[in-house]
């Protein structure tokens, strides 16, 4: 899609006057609808519709074995400390620009942004029992001398220093009308809330081997505590002002954007700048401040909505 110079000027002037092409003001968010648990084969899923932007996120949990010897071998390319692995795919059906290699860099940018957003070790505070909302204590390491253990998402432990849950978070962009960063982060948060991990008991065999016993009751599962999981808010600078929740048209005439991750304790979890022109420090301060306010508002609305969904089920 392309915009003509007169269209650009129309959008810019509108934003200067605090009214956008769809009637919103600069800091208005579009309505979004959230559905969860749509994909039956995944551990958790969510679909977000933000006006015409539509993203689908699926969470698959897998057991990863960590081998101490393998860790040190140079052939191992995967970061063994990572418990959350993100992958974003922009469908060519969403926009012809995404066809072939067109979405290659966008996919990486989106996935890396999510990765940055979840880079803090305490993103997932813990697990709780789905049925009675009581806290579930993951098995802790008996030997204390392990650095990796303490520094990372230890709540996803099955057997300390041996087996962990790895969550593969795959997002598909089905339709795009701007603001993909925010949409993806909100959908990911909802998908994590929806994720159910089976209860697993590890049984030490006679020798080294460990066998797993999965709980018989399919409803007796574990959920993820998303209290500390952030979402991101993208501030886009158009002309001399900045706006939130841009449409594709507005994105085409932007100068720069700043994607800011915010969590419920109003801490900043990630910042990423995009776009080609620069920003001056005072604007950045303002943007972060505004993002904090907007982010907290979205988080509280979202938490309420997620609770409602849970009660309905």
């Amino acid at each position: 899609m392309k915009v003509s110079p007169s269209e650009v000027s129309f959008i810019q002037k509108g934003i200067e006057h605090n009214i956008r092409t769809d009637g919103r003001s600069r800091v208005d968010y579009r309505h979004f609808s959230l559905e969860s648990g749509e994909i039956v084969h995944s551990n958790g899923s969510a679909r977000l519709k933000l006006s015409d932007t539509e993203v689908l996120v699926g969470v698959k949990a897998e057991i990863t074995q960590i081998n101490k010897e393998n860790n040190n071998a140079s052939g191992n390319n995967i970061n063994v400390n990572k418990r959350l692995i993100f992958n974003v795919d922009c469908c060519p059906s969403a926009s012809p620009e995404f066809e072939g290699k067109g979405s290659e860099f966008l996919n990486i940018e989106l996935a890396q942004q999510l990765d940055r957003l979840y880079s803090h070790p305490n993103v997932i505070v813990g697990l709780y029992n789905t049925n009675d909302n009581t806290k579930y204590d993951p098995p802790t390491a008996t030997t204390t001398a392990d650095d990796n253990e303490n520094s990372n998402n230890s709540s996803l432990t099955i057997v300390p220093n041996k087996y962990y849950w790895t969550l593969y978070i795959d997002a598909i962009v089905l339709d795009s009308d701007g603001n993909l960063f925010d949409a993806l982060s909100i959908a990911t948060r909802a998908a994590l809330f929806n994720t159910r991990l089976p209860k697993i008991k590890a049984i030490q065999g006679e020798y080294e081997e460990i066998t797993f016993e999965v709980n018989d009751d399919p409803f007796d599962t574990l959920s993820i505590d998303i209290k500390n999981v952030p979402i991101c808010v993208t501030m886009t600078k158009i002309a001399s002002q900045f706006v939130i929740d841009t449409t594709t048209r507005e994105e085409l005439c932007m100068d720069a954007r700043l994607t800011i991750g915010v969590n419920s304790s109003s801490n900043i979890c990630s910042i990423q700048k995009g776009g080609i022109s620069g920003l001056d420090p005072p604007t950045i301060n303002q943007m972060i401040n505004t993002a904090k306010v907007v982010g907290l508002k979205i988080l509280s609305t979202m938490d309420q909505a997620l609770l409602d969904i849970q009660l309905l089920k």
Partner: protein
Amino acid sequence: MKIDYRSGNSIKTQIPLDYKEYLKRKEDKQQQQQQQQQSTQPTGAITYKRKDRLDEQFRQIFMKTGIVTQASGSCYLEIEKTKVLCSVYGPRATPKTELFETAKLNCELKYATFSSNKEKFDYLENTKEKDQSLIIYQSIIGSLRLDKYPKTVVDVYILVLNDDGDVLVSAITAASMALADAGVEMYDMVASCSAVCIKDATLINPTAQEETLTEGAGKILVSKMPSHNNITQLIQTGELNYNNVLESVNLCIDGSDKIYSIMKQNLIDSLLRQQKKDGDGNEINGITTNAADDQMEE
């Protein structure tokens, strides 16, 4: 490729130690903060004590332009053990770019297979390299006047020879130096600086060891065009509170200003050296030198 004999080279630069003022400011701020609120420190779990230098001190930086003879411009940059080589080809014509109104910037970062002992890098570009290439691209594109070179392409290739932390900072700085060396018209050079925020300290210019030890802590990278006071790239990972973010961004801005002065000095030195080597009789070279000088002042 010319070999760099470090012993004979005099332009090894150390950032002056004028951190006293900063430290004082920081103490004041800390006191203020303590009085105001005992806010929750999100990075509370991670502590690390730097031994060989101050928290706000840079490692020694060495840079030299004109290393690769075949390239239009090149720069070799060392921040102690982090070694980066950047070469710029172009602006040159390619059949693909015939229709573009502005030049296309192409940016590629590659880790040498032997650059790190933690990760093994293939000959194929992996996700990390692609992501970092994108970050570098976004940092430098704002500084270039690409509209001056229609129908051309500018290629920036960065090779990381040794990774001892702060690769992105070195790569961005080297790329900007190489572009200036190539004589690509630009508004300003881009200087960059990064910091790690841990419990009650902010470590500037972390080494690879510090990066791994503080994994999960807040990290900030800022790249900036100092004479425009424009921030061209800002990346943060890890959880930090608002005040911490602002403080470390400011610290990084200060740091990149310092790097910028070194870059400028190095560029002037290299031009003077070139002039001396070519002799005063060579007019063509004299003109190009002047032009480049003008450009930098701009």
